């Protein structure tokens, strides 16, 4: 695999962005979709080629240097790409799911006047995301990190005529800024400690020169984790993600479910040497992940907006991944990233298909009985629901179960939280499915008349993703089920350095097979029971969530209003800052303006007097000039 082809992987989407972005709105819609999609599909093909070449060459990681970027004193930051197991897996997810979502967007966004702009932003997002995972040092990762944040902002506020959407975009941007500050501080600490930001150098120095639990390493990992909290929507920085659903649905699928929000997990796995050296950070990661998983899942139980439910589900699933990371189950978390990318992208695209058919209605209280009108959407949505609920043999079962097994080894309380979260996940997902596709139609007459299955450009990605959600789990079948877990084997070289640095943490306290079977049985039973509960409630009894006007009991109201976290943040952070800026503003009004006004008055007074000399008569000007020359001559010659 030559280096130039590797460079093309991020450059193709960039080219797509430039063509569609500069050409907007002069390029015809047909061409825009083809250009944008082809760029990503070509990237995907190149990624697959790179992957095959990498495996054929014996899975040796390598670095492709492009140019020297920053050289200051002893610090040298090259611009180079690193190809190894982790970056290749991320490449495949990003370009693969990205291609499908681009194809889907051709159908979904067809009627939008910003069609070209939309594709340009999507391509730009992919460029930054690929940069993020391909870079061979933390600074390139940071460029990608900021770039995807920017694209997320642009795409959340894509329909920028709506003030609420713009506010959601700003909220996402500012919340991410808080996390980015942590990430940046982490990078600075890395530079101060190791004198380099290159992964290979930092990790080899860390593994060689630092003890387990070294305070410096703990500081670095905590700072980096703050960055991950922001990007991957963990408590306390998660509130932006549900609001981010203001963007078009393909954006929610690509950026806010499948790829960008997993950047935090990618970063932790990438820094696994550092995290393995900092067990106390891992504890925090695990606890925050578990808390987020449970908390977000409980909010998801009572939401009525189809995309909001999926958003809280995403937050909750990201919590699972961090829980896995906390238990040092890096491969299992990556496994969940992959399967989650499949089924969550599918869920969002399915929701998009429903919204499309319902003429932009998102409230599940107005849906119902759609399974006959939208058979393809229904079937694929069903598969995704089963997958996310963790019912075998679909993808979510294997990955979630692996995480839960590792968590069980590590911390029993977290495992209980995980199972509780999984019960809730199964309940709210089946609730969503039943309310949307079963029962009778509850929308307006016009909507019912308009109902139709989506065009092929939308259903084909759904079908492909459904197949992947169904069989994707087989890349990581655990030993207990007579599998060989190819994914874990493929990824194991990534942890070699961490194993030498902290061998104790990697000692296998392997569960016996019977214990594993028991854990699986518990989580599958839990998921099935809550699925059945949802069926009884919403299909047999035909319950429909109450309209907003109806009084709710205390706890219900708290959950329905997302535990008032937004209101809390508003009171604690937003309002004081607004008050402070108002005070500073009035200070500026009084003092600074006074001084400036005085100068302005002085100048305008002088100008009023002096402008009388501009009479407009050429004779007078010439006379003044001659007088001036004479004066200068006298002054020079005689004085």
């Amino acid at each position, binding site marked *: 695999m030559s280096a130039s082809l590797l460079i093309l992987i991020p450059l193709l989407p960039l080219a797509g962005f430039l063509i569609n972005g500069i050409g907007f709105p002069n390029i015809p819609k047909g061409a825009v979709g083809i250009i944008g999609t082809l760029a990503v599909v070509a990237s995907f093909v190149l990624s697959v080629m790179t992957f095959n070449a990498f495996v054929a060459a014996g899975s040796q990681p390598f670095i492709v240097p492009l140019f020297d970027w920053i050289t200051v004193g002893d610090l040298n930051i090259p611009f180079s790409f690193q190809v190894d197991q982790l970056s290749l897996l991320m490449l495949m997810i990003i370009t693969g799911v990205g291609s499908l979502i681009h194809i889907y967007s051709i159908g979904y966004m067809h009627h939008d006047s910003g069609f070209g702009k939309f594709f340009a932003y999507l391509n730009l997002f992919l460029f930054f995301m690929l940069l993020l995972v391909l870079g061979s040092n933390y600074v390139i990762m940071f460029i990608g990190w900021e770039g995807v944040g920017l694209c997320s902002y642009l795409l959340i506020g894509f329909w920028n005529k709506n003030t609420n959407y713009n506010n959601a975009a700003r909220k996402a941007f500012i919340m991410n800024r808080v996390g980015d500050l942590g990430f940046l501080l982490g990078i600075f600490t890395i530079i101060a400690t190791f004198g380099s930001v290159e992964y290979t150098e930092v990790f080899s120095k860390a593994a060689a020169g630092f003890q387990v639990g070294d305070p410096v390493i703990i500081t670095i990992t905590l700072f980096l984790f703050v960055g991950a909290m922001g990007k991957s929507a963990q408590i306390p920085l998660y509130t932006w993600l549900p609001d981010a659903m203001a963007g078009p649905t393909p954006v929610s699928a690509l950026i806010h479910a499948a790829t960008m929000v997993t950047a935090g997990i990618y970063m932790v796995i990438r820094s696994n040497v550092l995290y393995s050296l900092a067990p106390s950070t891992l504890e925090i990661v695990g606890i925050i992940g578990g808390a987020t998983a449970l908390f977000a899942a409980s909010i998801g139980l009572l939401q009525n907006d189809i995309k909001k439910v999926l958003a809280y589900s995403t937050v909750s699933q990201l919590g699972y991944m961090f829980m896995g990371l906390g238990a040092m189950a890096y491969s299992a978390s990556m496994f969940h990233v992959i399967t989650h990318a499949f089924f969550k992208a599918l869920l969002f695209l399915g929701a998009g298909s429903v919204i499309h058919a319902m003429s932009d209605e998102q409230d599940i209280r107005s849906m119902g009985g759609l399974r006959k009108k939208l058979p393809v959407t229904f079937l694929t949505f069903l598969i995704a629901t089963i997958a996310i609920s963790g019912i075998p043999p679909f993808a979510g079962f294997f990955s979630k179960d692996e995480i839960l097994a590792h968590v069980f080894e590590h911390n029993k309380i977290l495992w209980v939280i995980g199972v509780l979260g999984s019960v809730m996940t199964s309940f709210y997902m089946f609730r969503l499915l039943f309310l949307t596709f079963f029962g009778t139609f509850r929308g307006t007459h016009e909507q019912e008349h308009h109902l139709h299955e989506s065009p092929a450009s939308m259903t084909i990605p759904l079908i492909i993703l459904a197949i992947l959600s169904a069989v994707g789990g087989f890349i990581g079948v655990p030993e207990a089920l007579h599998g060989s877990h190819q994914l874990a084997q493929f990824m194991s070289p990534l942890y070699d350095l961490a194993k030498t640095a902290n061998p104790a943490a990697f000692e296998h306290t392997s569960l016996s097979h019977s214990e594993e079977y028991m854990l699986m049985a518990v989580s599958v039973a839990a998921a099935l029971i809550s699925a059945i509960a949802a069926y009884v409630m919403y299909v047999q009894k035909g319950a429909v969530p109450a309209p907003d006007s109806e009084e709710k009991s205390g706890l219900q109201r708290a959950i329905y209003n997302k535990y008032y976290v937004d209101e809390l943040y508003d009171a604690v952070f937003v309002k004081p800052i607004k008050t402070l800026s108002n005070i500073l503003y009035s200070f500026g009004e009084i003092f600074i303006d006074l001084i400036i006004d005085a100068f302005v008055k002085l100048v305008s007074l002088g100008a009023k007097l002096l*402008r*009388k000399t*501009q*009479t*407009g*008569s*050429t*004779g007078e000007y*010439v*006379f003044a000039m*001659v007088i001036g020359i004479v004066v200068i001559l006298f002054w020079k010659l005689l004085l």
Partner: protein
Amino acid sequence: MIPNPMMPEVNIPAVIQHIPLQSYLILSTLLFVIGIIGVLTRRNAIIIFMSIELMLNAANLLLIAFSSYRSDPSAQVFVFFIMAVAAAEVAVGLAIIVMIYRNTRNTDIGFLNKLKW
């Protein structure tokens, strides 16, 4: 240098030096002052323009005179440059005057007093 039979060799600096330097000074001062008076008193743009040329040539004359008396040829080179630039300036200046005439139907600069406070 090859002697040219058609043109008997004339020592130009010597010819110039027949007349005392003071006369040149007086003549060019006179020309210059006439030019200034012309610029200040006349209202016709073309006359003003000619007066400016007069001032320019007064300066040229003085340069030539000094150049001969001091045996320094660089001033003569300088004069050539001034003449070349003056030619260009005349072209531009006359073009402007023509445009003014087309717009206002006369060349009186007293009419061009629109640019004032």
